[in-house]
Protein backbone atom coordinates (compact mmCIF):
# COMPACT_ATOMS: atom_id res chain seq x y z
CA UNK A 1 0.00 0.00 0.00
CA UNK A 2 1.00 3.62 -0.48
CA UNK A 3 2.17 5.26 2.77
CA UNK A 4 0.16 8.33 1.79
CA UNK A 5 -3.02 6.37 2.52
CA UNK A 6 -1.99 6.19 6.16
CA UNK A 7 -1.88 9.97 6.48
CA UNK A 8 -5.27 10.84 7.85
CA UNK A 9 -6.58 12.35 11.08
CA UNK A 10 -7.61 9.08 12.76
CA UNK A 11 -4.12 7.60 12.30
CA UNK A 12 -2.31 10.61 13.73
CA UNK A 13 -0.15 9.53 16.68
CA UNK A 14 2.06 12.59 17.14
CA UNK A 15 1.88 16.24 16.15
CA UNK A 16 2.73 19.67 17.44
CA UNK A 17 0.96 20.62 20.66
CA UNK A 18 -1.86 23.15 20.37
CA UNK A 19 -0.32 24.99 23.33
CA UNK A 20 2.61 25.99 21.10
CA UNK A 21 2.06 29.04 18.91
CA UNK A 22 2.99 29.21 15.22
CA UNK A 23 5.95 31.47 15.98
CA UNK A 24 9.24 29.96 14.83
CA UNK A 25 11.53 29.31 17.81
CA UNK A 26 14.57 31.62 17.82
CA UNK A 27 16.73 28.83 19.22
CA UNK A 28 19.69 27.44 17.29
CA UNK A 29 19.10 24.24 15.27
CA UNK A 30 19.02 21.21 17.58
CA UNK A 31 18.75 23.22 20.82
CA UNK A 32 17.30 21.36 23.80
CA UNK A 33 15.07 24.33 24.69
CA UNK A 34 12.68 23.49 21.87
CA UNK A 35 12.27 19.94 23.13
CA UNK A 36 11.61 21.03 26.71
CA UNK A 37 9.12 23.69 25.53
CA UNK A 38 7.32 21.00 23.60
CA UNK A 39 7.10 18.66 26.60
CA UNK A 40 5.76 21.40 28.87
CA UNK A 41 3.20 22.37 26.22
CA UNK A 42 2.11 18.75 25.75
CA UNK A 43 1.60 18.30 29.51
CA UNK A 44 -0.39 21.55 29.79
CA UNK A 45 -2.54 20.38 26.88
CA UNK A 46 -3.06 16.89 28.28
CA UNK A 47 -3.98 18.21 31.73
CA UNK A 48 -6.36 20.75 30.18
CA UNK A 49 -4.90 23.67 32.14
CA UNK A 50 -4.20 26.25 29.42
CA UNK A 51 -6.37 28.90 31.07
CA UNK A 52 -5.13 28.14 34.58
CA UNK A 53 -1.43 28.17 33.77
CA UNK A 54 0.89 31.17 34.00
CA UNK A 55 4.53 30.91 32.94
CA UNK A 56 7.45 33.03 34.10
CA UNK A 57 10.38 33.35 31.69
CA UNK A 58 13.97 34.18 32.62
CA UNK A 59 16.73 36.30 31.22
CA UNK A 60 18.80 34.06 28.99
CA UNK A 61 17.96 32.12 25.83
CA UNK A 62 14.59 31.19 27.35
CA UNK A 63 13.55 34.85 27.58
CA UNK A 64 11.29 34.63 24.53
CA UNK A 65 9.50 31.49 25.69
CA UNK A 66 6.48 33.77 26.12
CA UNK A 67 6.21 33.99 22.33
CA UNK A 68 5.96 30.22 21.98
CA UNK A 69 3.49 29.13 24.67
CA UNK A 70 -0.12 30.05 24.04
CA UNK A 71 -0.71 30.88 27.69
CA UNK A 72 -0.42 34.08 29.72
CA UNK A 73 3.24 34.72 30.57
CA UNK A 74 5.46 37.25 32.29
CA UNK A 75 9.16 37.94 31.75
CA UNK A 76 11.17 38.31 34.96
CA UNK A 77 14.40 40.18 35.62
CA UNK A 78 17.55 38.05 35.58
CA UNK A 79 17.34 35.44 38.35
CA UNK A 80 14.10 36.74 39.87
CA UNK A 81 11.61 34.32 38.31
CA UNK A 82 10.97 32.44 41.56
CA UNK A 83 10.16 35.70 43.36
CA UNK A 84 7.82 36.76 40.53
CA UNK A 85 6.19 33.32 40.65
CA UNK A 86 5.78 33.71 44.43
CA UNK A 87 3.85 36.96 43.95
CA UNK A 88 1.56 35.26 41.42
CA UNK A 89 1.13 32.09 43.48
CA UNK A 90 0.22 33.97 46.65
CA UNK A 91 -2.35 36.19 44.97
CA UNK A 92 -3.77 33.59 42.58
CA UNK A 93 -3.38 30.21 44.29
CA UNK A 94 -5.85 28.62 41.86
CA UNK A 95 -3.38 29.25 39.03
CA UNK A 96 -0.71 26.76 38.01
CA UNK A 97 2.54 28.73 37.92
CA UNK A 98 5.82 27.59 36.43
CA UNK A 99 9.19 29.24 35.95
CA UNK A 100 11.54 28.34 33.14
CA UNK A 101 15.15 29.23 33.97
CA UNK A 102 18.67 28.50 32.82
CA UNK A 103 21.69 27.61 34.90
CA UNK A 104 23.04 31.18 35.03
CA UNK A 105 19.64 32.65 35.84
CA UNK A 106 18.66 30.13 38.52
CA UNK A 107 21.92 28.98 40.08
CA UNK A 108 24.10 32.10 39.78
CA UNK A 109 22.28 35.43 39.93
CA UNK A 110 19.01 33.96 41.18
CA UNK A 111 20.33 31.58 43.83
CA UNK A 112 18.72 33.45 46.72
CA UNK A 113 15.27 33.80 45.14
CA UNK A 114 15.33 30.12 44.16
CA UNK A 115 16.33 28.80 47.58
CA UNK A 116 13.75 30.88 49.43
CA UNK A 117 10.87 30.06 47.09
CA UNK A 118 11.78 26.39 47.58
CA UNK A 119 12.01 26.85 51.33
CA UNK A 120 8.63 28.57 51.53
CA UNK A 121 7.19 25.66 49.58
CA UNK A 122 5.50 27.85 47.00
CA UNK A 123 3.10 25.67 45.06
CA UNK A 124 4.88 26.18 41.74
CA UNK A 125 6.91 24.21 39.21
CA UNK A 126 10.49 25.29 38.57
CA UNK A 127 12.23 24.16 35.38
CA UNK A 128 16.00 24.42 35.51
CA UNK A 129 17.68 24.04 32.13
CA UNK A 130 21.29 23.12 32.79
CA UNK A 131 23.48 23.29 29.70
CA UNK A 132 26.63 24.26 31.61
CA UNK A 133 27.03 27.56 29.74
CA UNK A 134 25.62 31.04 29.21
CA UNK A 135 24.04 30.61 25.80
CA UNK A 136 22.51 33.99 25.06
CA UNK A 137 25.52 36.12 25.95
CA UNK A 138 27.83 34.04 23.79
CA UNK A 139 29.01 30.97 25.67
CA UNK A 140 30.58 32.13 28.93
CA UNK A 141 31.22 29.96 32.01
CA UNK A 142 28.14 29.04 34.05
CA UNK A 143 28.04 27.81 37.67
CA UNK A 144 27.49 24.34 36.21
CA UNK A 145 30.34 24.39 33.67
CA UNK A 146 32.33 21.19 34.13
CA UNK A 147 35.98 21.33 35.23
CA UNK A 148 38.19 21.52 32.18
CA UNK A 149 35.32 22.66 29.94
CA UNK A 150 36.25 25.46 27.54
CA UNK A 151 33.98 28.51 27.37
CA UNK A 152 34.40 32.12 26.25
CA UNK A 153 35.54 33.09 29.75
CA UNK A 154 37.47 29.87 30.46
CA UNK A 155 39.47 29.62 27.22
CA UNK A 156 41.89 27.16 28.82
CA UNK A 157 39.12 25.13 30.41
CA UNK A 158 37.47 25.68 33.78
CA UNK A 159 40.17 25.58 36.45
CA UNK A 160 38.57 25.23 39.90
CA UNK A 161 41.48 27.15 41.47
CA UNK A 162 40.60 30.15 39.31
CA UNK A 163 36.88 29.73 38.74
CA UNK A 164 35.58 27.54 41.56
CA UNK A 165 33.81 24.23 41.13
CA UNK A 166 30.62 23.34 39.30
CA UNK A 167 27.80 22.75 41.77
CA UNK A 168 24.61 20.77 41.97
CA UNK A 169 21.94 23.12 43.26
CA UNK A 170 19.32 20.44 42.58
CA UNK A 171 20.71 18.15 45.28
CA UNK A 172 20.99 21.14 47.64
CA UNK A 173 17.37 22.15 47.12
CA UNK A 174 16.18 18.60 47.84
CA UNK A 175 17.18 19.23 51.47
CA UNK A 176 14.51 21.90 51.90
CA UNK A 177 11.20 21.07 53.61
CA UNK A 178 9.06 23.05 51.18
CA UNK A 179 10.12 21.03 48.15
CA UNK A 180 8.00 17.98 47.37
CA UNK A 181 9.58 16.70 44.18
CA UNK A 182 13.11 17.05 42.86
CA UNK A 183 14.21 15.28 39.73
CA UNK A 184 16.97 15.46 37.13
CA UNK A 185 16.17 14.48 33.56
CA UNK A 186 17.61 15.03 30.11
CA UNK A 187 16.30 15.29 26.56
CA UNK A 188 19.34 13.84 24.77
CA UNK A 189 17.39 11.03 23.06
CA UNK A 190 13.81 9.88 22.47
CA UNK A 191 13.99 7.48 25.44
CA UNK A 192 15.21 10.21 27.79
CA UNK A 193 12.61 12.62 26.43
CA UNK A 194 9.75 10.24 27.18
CA UNK A 195 11.00 9.86 30.77
CA UNK A 196 11.42 13.62 31.12
CA UNK A 197 7.83 14.13 30.03
CA UNK A 198 6.57 11.81 32.77
CA UNK A 199 8.56 13.84 35.31
CA UNK A 200 7.17 17.13 33.97
CA UNK A 201 3.64 15.76 34.16
CA UNK A 202 4.20 14.70 37.75
CA UNK A 203 5.52 18.16 38.64
CA UNK A 204 2.39 19.83 37.23
CA UNK A 205 0.18 17.32 39.04
CA UNK A 206 1.93 18.25 42.29
CA UNK A 207 1.19 21.93 41.65
CA UNK A 208 -2.46 21.11 40.94
CA UNK A 209 -2.65 19.15 44.18
CA UNK A 210 -0.89 21.94 46.13
CA UNK A 211 1.80 19.57 47.42
CA UNK A 212 4.61 22.14 47.40
CA UNK A 213 7.33 23.13 45.00
CA UNK A 214 8.44 20.74 42.26
CA UNK A 215 11.91 21.22 40.86
CA UNK A 216 12.76 19.69 37.50
CA UNK A 217 16.32 19.96 36.24
CA UNK A 218 16.83 19.17 32.58
CA UNK A 219 20.43 18.46 31.60
CA UNK A 220 20.52 20.10 28.20
CA UNK A 221 22.82 20.86 25.30
CA UNK A 222 24.02 24.16 23.93
CA UNK A 223 25.53 22.90 20.74
CA UNK A 224 26.44 26.42 19.53
CA UNK A 225 28.14 27.30 22.80
CA UNK A 226 29.81 23.92 22.99
CA UNK A 227 30.85 24.32 19.34
CA UNK A 228 29.51 20.91 18.27
CA UNK A 229 26.88 19.58 15.90
CA UNK A 230 23.51 18.88 17.57
CA UNK A 231 24.05 15.12 17.27
CA UNK A 232 27.59 15.34 18.70
CA UNK A 233 26.36 17.59 21.51
CA UNK A 234 23.79 15.01 22.63
CA UNK A 235 26.49 12.35 22.61
CA UNK A 236 28.87 14.60 24.55
CA UNK A 237 26.13 15.31 27.10
CA UNK A 238 25.58 11.61 27.76
CA UNK A 239 29.29 10.90 28.05
CA UNK A 240 30.39 13.97 30.04
CA UNK A 241 27.45 15.70 31.71
CA UNK A 242 25.52 12.69 32.99
CA UNK A 243 28.39 11.19 35.05
CA UNK A 244 28.54 14.49 37.01
CA UNK A 245 24.81 15.26 36.88
CA UNK A 246 23.22 11.81 37.34
CA UNK A 247 19.62 11.36 36.24
CA UNK A 248 16.63 10.31 38.31
CA UNK A 249 14.34 11.40 41.12
CA UNK A 250 16.24 12.90 44.05
CA UNK A 251 13.23 13.56 46.26
CA UNK A 252 9.61 12.59 46.02
CA UNK A 253 7.05 13.02 48.78
CA UNK A 254 3.26 12.92 48.98
CA UNK A 255 2.50 10.90 45.87
Amino acid sequence: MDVREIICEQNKVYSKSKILTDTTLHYCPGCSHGVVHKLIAEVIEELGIQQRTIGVTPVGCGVFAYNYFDIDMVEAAHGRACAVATGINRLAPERVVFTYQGDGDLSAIGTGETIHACNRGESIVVFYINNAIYGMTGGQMAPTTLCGMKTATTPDGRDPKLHGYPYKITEMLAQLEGVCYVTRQTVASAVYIRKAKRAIRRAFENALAGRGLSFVEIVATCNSGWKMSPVAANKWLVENMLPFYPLGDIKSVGE
Partner: protein
Amino acid sequence: MTRIKGAVVIQTEQCKGCGLCVEACASNVLTMSVNVNSKGYVYSTSLNPELCIGCASCAVVCPDSCISVYRQSVKEERD
Protein backbone atom coordinates in the same frame (compact mmCIF):
# COMPACT_ATOMS: atom_id res chain seq x y z
CA MET B 1 -0.43 -11.27 9.59
CA THR B 2 -0.73 -7.72 10.86
CA ARG B 3 2.01 -5.22 10.36
CA ILE B 4 2.34 -1.72 11.71
CA LYS B 5 2.87 0.81 8.98
CA GLY B 6 3.82 4.39 9.67
CA ALA B 7 4.23 7.68 7.87
CA VAL B 8 5.72 11.06 8.68
CA VAL B 9 4.83 14.53 7.42
CA ILE B 10 7.63 17.05 7.78
CA GLN B 11 7.03 20.79 7.74
CA THR B 12 10.19 21.42 5.75
CA GLU B 13 9.83 25.21 5.94
CA GLN B 14 9.99 25.00 9.77
CA CYS B 15 12.93 22.56 9.75
CA LYS B 16 16.33 23.95 10.76
CA GLY B 17 18.26 20.93 9.61
CA CYS B 18 19.65 19.90 12.98
CA GLY B 19 19.60 16.21 11.98
CA LEU B 20 18.43 14.91 15.37
CA CYS B 21 15.46 13.12 13.73
CA VAL B 22 17.72 11.31 11.27
CA GLU B 23 19.83 10.11 14.20
CA ALA B 24 16.72 9.09 16.17
CA CYS B 25 15.19 7.02 13.36
CA ALA B 26 16.05 3.35 13.87
CA SER B 27 14.41 2.36 10.57
CA ASN B 28 16.54 4.55 8.30
CA VAL B 29 13.52 6.35 6.93
CA LEU B 30 14.90 9.86 7.10
CA THR B 31 17.80 11.71 5.57
CA MET B 32 18.82 15.32 5.11
CA SER B 33 17.90 17.01 1.85
CA VAL B 34 20.35 18.18 -0.75
CA ASN B 35 18.28 21.32 -1.31
CA VAL B 36 17.66 24.08 1.22
CA ASN B 37 14.40 25.67 2.38
CA SER B 38 13.65 29.39 2.10
CA LYS B 39 15.63 30.07 5.28
CA GLY B 40 18.69 28.36 3.85
CA TYR B 41 18.54 25.23 5.96
CA VAL B 42 18.88 21.72 4.61
CA TYR B 43 15.81 19.88 5.85
CA SER B 44 14.76 16.43 6.92
CA THR B 45 13.06 14.31 4.30
CA SER B 46 11.81 10.73 3.84
CA LEU B 47 14.33 8.62 1.92
CA ASN B 48 12.69 5.25 2.59
CA PRO B 49 9.08 6.02 3.54
CA GLU B 50 8.03 2.38 3.19
CA LEU B 51 10.28 1.44 6.14
CA CYS B 52 8.49 3.75 8.63
CA ILE B 53 6.85 1.98 11.58
CA GLY B 54 5.33 5.15 13.07
CA CYS B 55 7.37 4.98 16.28
CA ALA B 56 7.42 8.83 16.46
CA SER B 57 10.97 8.98 17.81
CA CYS B 58 11.86 11.47 15.07
CA ALA B 59 8.98 13.75 16.09
CA VAL B 60 9.70 13.37 19.79
CA VAL B 61 13.29 14.59 19.42
CA CYS B 62 12.45 17.42 16.99
CA PRO B 63 13.05 20.70 18.86
CA ASP B 64 10.95 22.66 16.37
CA SER B 65 7.91 20.34 16.36
CA CYS B 66 8.10 19.99 12.56
CA ILE B 67 7.09 16.34 12.31
CA SER B 68 3.66 14.75 12.49
CA VAL B 69 3.45 10.95 12.67
CA TYR B 70 0.72 8.60 11.47
CA ARG B 71 0.35 4.88 12.20
CA GLN B 72 -1.95 2.12 10.99
CA SER B 73 -2.20 -1.65 11.41
CA VAL B 74 -2.17 -3.24 7.96
CA LYS B 75 -3.21 -6.84 7.27
CA GLU B 76 -0.82 -8.47 4.82
CA GLU B 77 -1.09 -11.81 3.00
CA ARG B 78 1.86 -14.12 3.55
CA ASP B 79 3.74 -14.69 0.30
